[in-house]
């Protein structure tokens, strides 16, 4: 799966949730040690691996790894 969230780096800014074109992320109830509410990729199957979440996260808390699964992306186009 392409998305990893580095929990302890997240500061709960919400950029991933607000900017994902596929609305993959939602705010979860889980908190990290600093008390920030973490995002969760609830619709990871809709991810087109555009990379905006990785790029926009100011804290390097999202790692998007391009998978070799092109079928996932092709279906969305």
């Amino acid at each position: 799966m392409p998305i990893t969230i580095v929990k302890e780096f997240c500061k709960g800014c919400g950029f991933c949730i607000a900017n994902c074109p596929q609305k993959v992320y939602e705010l979860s109830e889980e908190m990290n040690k600093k008390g920030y509410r973490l995002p969760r990729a609830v619709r990871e199957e809709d991810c087109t691996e555009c990379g905006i979440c990785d790029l926009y996260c100011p804290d390097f808390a999202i790692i998007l790894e391009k998978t070799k699964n092109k079928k996932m992306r092709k279906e969305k186009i």
Partner: protein
Amino acid sequence: MSALGENKEKLHPLVAKYLRRERMPHMACPGCGIGQVVHATLLAIDDLGLTPKDTVWVQGVGCSSRITYSTWIGDNIDAHHGRIFAVATGLKMARPDMNFILFTGDGDCGAIGGNHFIHACRRNLDVTAILFNNGIYGMTGGQVAPTSPLGATTTTTPYGNIEDPFDMCQMAIAAGASYVARWRSTDVKSIANSIKKGIQTKGLAFIEVLLQCPTNFGRYVLKTSNPQEVIKWIKEHTVTQQKAKELSPPELVGKYVIGEFIHRPERTGIVARYQEFLKKYMKE
């Protein structure tokens, strides 16, 4: 399988390769645009194949500097407030073979550091300077900056700012910098490309980034602490150079023009000239 990383030690590849693990997460406020610029910087460094041995991060004082200082795995040289360009001059002249990326802020570069900034541009010092323009003094708690918009309420302009903001890109161009550009924090790829171009250009590369400060600019000037709102405000107030040409001067008031303004790699600077100069005057 849960999309949340189970292994806490899995790090973003750029962090693993270029940043000090013990200094992460960096100390920027939630939603601050500085992290995005750092991301762009690391993309540029990675693309160019720069290493900790040949590249130095130089800072001043302010959020721009405190957040980036000692995060880079190579050398980090943090100067006194406003003296970043003077320090960079000493560093680069001593080690012209190395790359220097400067992280400076509106006060550090445009207020206390104004004079050194102007002369570094005039000398076309071969470094790449990134100005973090958040329109306020963030680190010290929200005072007015030379880049604050007219009318902005800040802690030292509680009744509204009566001064016009400084266009530091125009100053850099007038003083002689070889490459000047302005972007927004959300233009991560453009920033990365500009940084790459700046590093590859001999002479001073000055890249201004308009970035959101939700904590101070957001709360004091825009009355919101939502970083998305600040980003939206920035977007509403920026125009491309193309669009700017279509607007009349009154329409341009309060707008920031973004894009690449100038690229004159043919203009030599003090570093290259001094090398030539030594060839002529050095004895034996």
